[in-house]
């Protein structure tokens, strides 16, 4: 198992360097002179030259990337915002807890709603409940998060006046954005739980458990669910990563000061170091979540453990 963990962690390193390279290259190729963006249009040529030399912008491309990577890894420095002039990392660290809280809250909702619905759908396959659940799951998958967010605001904030339409500081304020963000994940978790459960309840060992006279509730909730949930765990991990990036739109609708909103504002003001830092930060978080999911998967699935024994 330790061999697997070490291998998986080592595999993450080239991936993260690759992500940093992609993000750096993409924004390196963006037209515009960073020195002029920082110093403004009135800056003299000598001031611009001095800035380029100080920041290493006059170095060859690969040297610049090397410097960027070195500073990011050893000093946690991923540049300075053109607009606020503050370090990108400190801006992101202020915003990230909002994004993380939003994604985590949405994930909890997705699991609490999706898993029971999927199980009941599988147990009562082809019933009205199953049909309705699958129709709602399909609608949930097709509904844009930004539209659902607006519909929730119209209903719960404008008409019923039950919940606030913006912010993320109180529990009430967290409900609408989290539900809007969770909708697609609820649908995916429901569908995955249902199909995984349907596969498992036809397995031989379930028939054996039933033929031993085991109570149906124990067969379903103890024997079947344990194995049926293995692929669901993987899906939840992947979904959590997508929720982190999906939060960009949700934050924009509900005026939540998270990383997504920071990035959208940065793109509009052409604050490229902030965009670069934001993409890199979320991609690294996504990769780490994927790593943790793989490790969790290996932990709960004895077949993977056996391979590395």
């Amino acid at each position: 198992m330790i061999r697997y963990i070490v291998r998986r962690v080592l595999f993450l390193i080239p991936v993260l360097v690759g992500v940093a390279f992609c993000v750096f290259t993409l924004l390196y190729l963006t037209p515009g002179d960073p020195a002029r963006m920082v110093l403004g249009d009135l800056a003299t040529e000598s001031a611009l030259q001095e800035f380029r030399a100080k920041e290493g912008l006059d170095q060859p491309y690969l040297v610049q990337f090397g410097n960027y990577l070195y500073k990011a890894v050893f000093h946690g420095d991923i540049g300075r915002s053109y607009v606020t002039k503050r370090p990108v990392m400190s801006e992101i660290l202020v915003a990230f807890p909002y994004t993380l809280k939003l994604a985590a809250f949405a994930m909890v909702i997705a699991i609490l709603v999706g898993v029971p619905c999927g199980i009941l759908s599988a147990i009562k396959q082809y019933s009205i409940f199953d049909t309705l659940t699958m129709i709602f799951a399909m609608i949930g998958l097709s509904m844009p998060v930004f539209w659902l967010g607006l519909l929730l605001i119209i209903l719960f904030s404008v008409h019923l006046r039950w919940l606030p339409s913006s912010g993320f500081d109180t529990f009430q304020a967290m409900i609408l954005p989290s539900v809007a963000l969770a909708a697609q994940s609820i649908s995916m978790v429901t569908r995955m739980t249902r199909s995984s459960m349907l596969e498992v309840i036809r397995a031989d060992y379930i028939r054996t458990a039933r033929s031993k006279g085991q109570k149906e509730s124990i067969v379903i909730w103890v024997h079947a669910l344990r194995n049926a949930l293995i692929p669901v765990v993987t899906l939840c991990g992947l979904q959590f990563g997508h929720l982190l990036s999906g939060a960009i739109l949700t934050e924009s609708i509900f005026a939540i000061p998270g990383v997504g909103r920071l990035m959208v504002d940065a793109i509009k003001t052409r604050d490229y170091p902030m965009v670069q830092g934001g993409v890199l930060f979320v991609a690294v978080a996504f990769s780490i979540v994927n790593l943790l999911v793989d490790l969790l998967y290996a932990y709960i699935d004895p077949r993977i453990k056996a391979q590395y024994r």
Partner: protein
Amino acid sequence: MNENVEMVATTGGRKTRSQLGEVLFRLRKSPLAMFGLAVVLILIFCALFADVIAPHSYSKQNLSHMFEAPSRQYLLGTDEFGRDILSRLIYGARVSLQVGFIAVGIALFVGGLLGAVSGYYGGWIDNGIMRVMDVLLSIPQTLLAIAIVAALGPGLMNLMIAVGISAVPNYARIVRSSVLSIRGMEFIEAARAVGSPDIRIILKHILPNSMAPIIVQSTLGVASAILNAAGLSFIGLGIQPPYPEWGAMLSGGRQYIRDYPHLTLYPGLAIMITILALNFLGDGLRDALDPKLKR
């Protein structure tokens, strides 16, 4: 899959048509897939003939008819500039389908090529291409599209490129796995034995026999591309006003959400129905193209 492959490989054009007929026959048995197909055909019709069927201009402002509720003259009401919402939705179908199909076309071309080369040659080429795809896959698709748009700037063409490129790894993986399952088969060896060049083997023998998963992924991919593009336009990074893109229409209407919710209701509904239809069609095609579900 293998049955499919052998059937296509050992038969001529006539049987290929009958295979298509059989797929359509199976597709017809799924009411949801037929609903999806009908909606997609209606949308394509709207996109092609928007100039004829739209009751008003999509861009003509009429400040004496701002924020009108649905009426006989304006079936879905008017927006903040007095423009007819129905006409803008009809023209919006043109934009959305264009973005969806072209973005998938870009993803399919680049991803398909990389996947085919990777799967066919194997070894270090496969390893190299797939590691790059792993890197791209570790950036969430929406985020990658946002980063590309940030670099290229907003606009229709850039939006299609961003959404297309961000989907490349998905297609590369699917095509690669299809190619891997086919490349060791006898008819490929036979083609190699008679001296067919690699490019001909890939284009004439391997890709046509890997079509089933590619068709399914492309149908679902159009839905996801439309959704991604609408999301980017919603946050102001996609198509710019006054061109009527559904996501941009939603974004424009959100500031009037308290008093005029119809400004956001209809564009959202249009996106949802389109995505739903494409998902139903994609699911239906997956079942129809799966030889294991035959009969």
